[in-house]
């Protein structure tokens, strides 16, 4: 697998605050890297640096071997970007959006006469080709955004929260498209708030918190490193001794969701817990990325 994106030591200061602080990120051909983190973690700023929208204050980014800071235009020729918000050109039809986007690249995308109908067909946009994008439903707008990002045949695609606001059916449609793009060898960098999406689609995860990388690897590794092996779920009101038990282990108050505590524990701690609270009713489940977000959001 050849490396498409290599970012080392990225730093960015905005409004006098260091929002990205020494981030490293790698992505290879046919790989999906999920970039995760709670709000304000620095995901969008990192992404914007990676696709050349913002210039890093420090650090280097190579796309397909080309350093972004040295030859931005050449590096951006290999990049496709689907922004979080719809940024299609409302003055043009769906089909024209693809041709106008192609006009912003040199060398010019070849054989547009074949490429544009092919993309419209592939993203099921052919029936809407002559309509204005604002007449499309949310799912089809996302499809147009992704199709537009692919019109110049990039090698690396950035997807910033591609399914936010979509209904479940439209979300799964986008997942299917993303999985197919990966199988064609495209490298993808994905940010999302949906934990199931990150777990299902990503080959590797990079988790950011307060502008720093706090974990990198597969979903399983990241969860094991940051959350633990198991999560004990119990009614907070019915568990008066649990807070004291946690304090004895140097742990603070656990994450609370709708009156229930979600307590991440190791295998050894789970055995201790079972011995300490033999008559308590609780549930044990595997940790998810939701637990990771809850944990990160509780940390000072």
């Amino acid at each position, binding site marked *: 697998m050849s490396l498409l994106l290599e970012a080392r030591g990225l730093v960015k200061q*905005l*409004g006098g605050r260091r929002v990205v602080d020494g981030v490293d990120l790698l992505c290879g051909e046919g790989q999906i890297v999920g970039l995760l983190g709670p709000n304000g973690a620095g995901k969008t700023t990192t992404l914007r640096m990676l*696709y050349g*929208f*913002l*210039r890093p204050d420090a650090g280097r980014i190579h796309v397909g071997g080309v350093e972004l800071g040295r030859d*931005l*235009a050449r590096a*951006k*020729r290999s990049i496709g*970007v689907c*922004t979080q*918000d*719809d*940024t*299609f*050109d*409302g*003055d*043009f039809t769906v089909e024209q959006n693809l041709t*106008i*986007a192609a*006009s*912003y*690249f*040199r060398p010019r995308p070849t054989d547009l006469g074949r490429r544009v109908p092919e993309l419209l067909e592939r993203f099921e946009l052919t029936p809407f080709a002559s309509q204005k994008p604002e007449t499309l439903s949310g799912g089809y707008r996302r499809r147009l955004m992704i199709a537009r*990002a692919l019109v*110049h045949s990039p090698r690396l695609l950035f997807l910033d929260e591609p399914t936010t606001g979509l209904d479940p059916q439209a979300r799964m449609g986008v997942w299917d498209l993303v999985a197919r793009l990966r199988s064609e060898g495209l490298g993808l960098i994905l940010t999302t708030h949906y934990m199931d999406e990150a777990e299902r689609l990503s080959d590797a995860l990079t988790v950011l918190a307060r502008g720093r990388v706090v974990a990198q690897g597969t979903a399983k590794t990241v969860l094991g490193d940051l959350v633990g092996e198991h999560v004990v779920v119990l009614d907070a009101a019915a568990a008066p001794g649990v807070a004291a038990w946690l304090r004895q282990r140097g742990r603070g108050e656990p994450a609370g969701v709708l009156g229930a505590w979600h307590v991440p524990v190791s295998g050894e701690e789970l055995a201790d817990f079972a011995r300490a609270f033999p008559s308590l009713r609780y549930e044990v489940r595997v940790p998810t990325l939701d637990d990771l977000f809850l944990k990160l959001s509780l940390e000072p």
Partner: protein
Amino acid sequence: MSWLGAAVDWQSRAVVARHLRVYLRNWYTAFLPPALEPVTMLVAFGLGLGGYVASLSWQGRPIEYMTYVAPGLLAYATFMTAIFQSLFGAFIRMRYQRTWEGQLTTQIELTHVIWGEVLWAGLLATMYAAIIAVVLVGFHAAGFITIEIAWLPLLLPVSFLAACAFGALGLCFTAMLPTIDHMNLPVFLLVLPMGLLSSTYFPLEHPVLIALNLANPLYHLAQTFRGVLIGGPVAVPLAGVAALSALMLVILVPLDLRLLRRRVLGE
């Protein structure tokens, strides 16, 4: 990449081509307003108001008010078209349509977006001026005005340069104003006073206005057009409009870049 060199980069031309493509979609919205506006203005100011103007002197000789107004109308349209395009048109593309954000995800950079807007303001204003010039030829042929129509094409490059400078000025406000409602401030505090008090519709005689207008490129533009079309000094006002326009571009485009880098990119 220098900010100045970006003016001739293919990316800036691609942005202009995009705006031109949108503009030319409907011939009636593209060509009717610039063709009808001078007719209305010439009828209102020339035939209507001109009927109450007893005599007007230009370079020591009496001329018809309508003939006096015609070159001013050309300069006024150049100014208004360019500045309104870079105020409202650019603001809508930046804020509401998010066209700029879409362009910035490609090989287009912010410097190209800015030059694209400035050059488009210049091109659109020049196209308007060309259409108005055709209308003026019609009025000349009909005997309503007397102008040197052979020189009209030579005015277009001057119109383009000045319009680019006016476009760069408009972009400064676009970069600074928080909402489209705030556009009223530059429109009423700068654009309308500048448009009307630059010898476009009447000769300047008040010494304060004359002194203020020495630094006003629109005044020099109107005087250049008048000198070419109805006879009079051309070299000094032409040098004035060229120098002031170049100065505005050199100062305002980097300023636009700085302001918009903060606004659009958050830097």
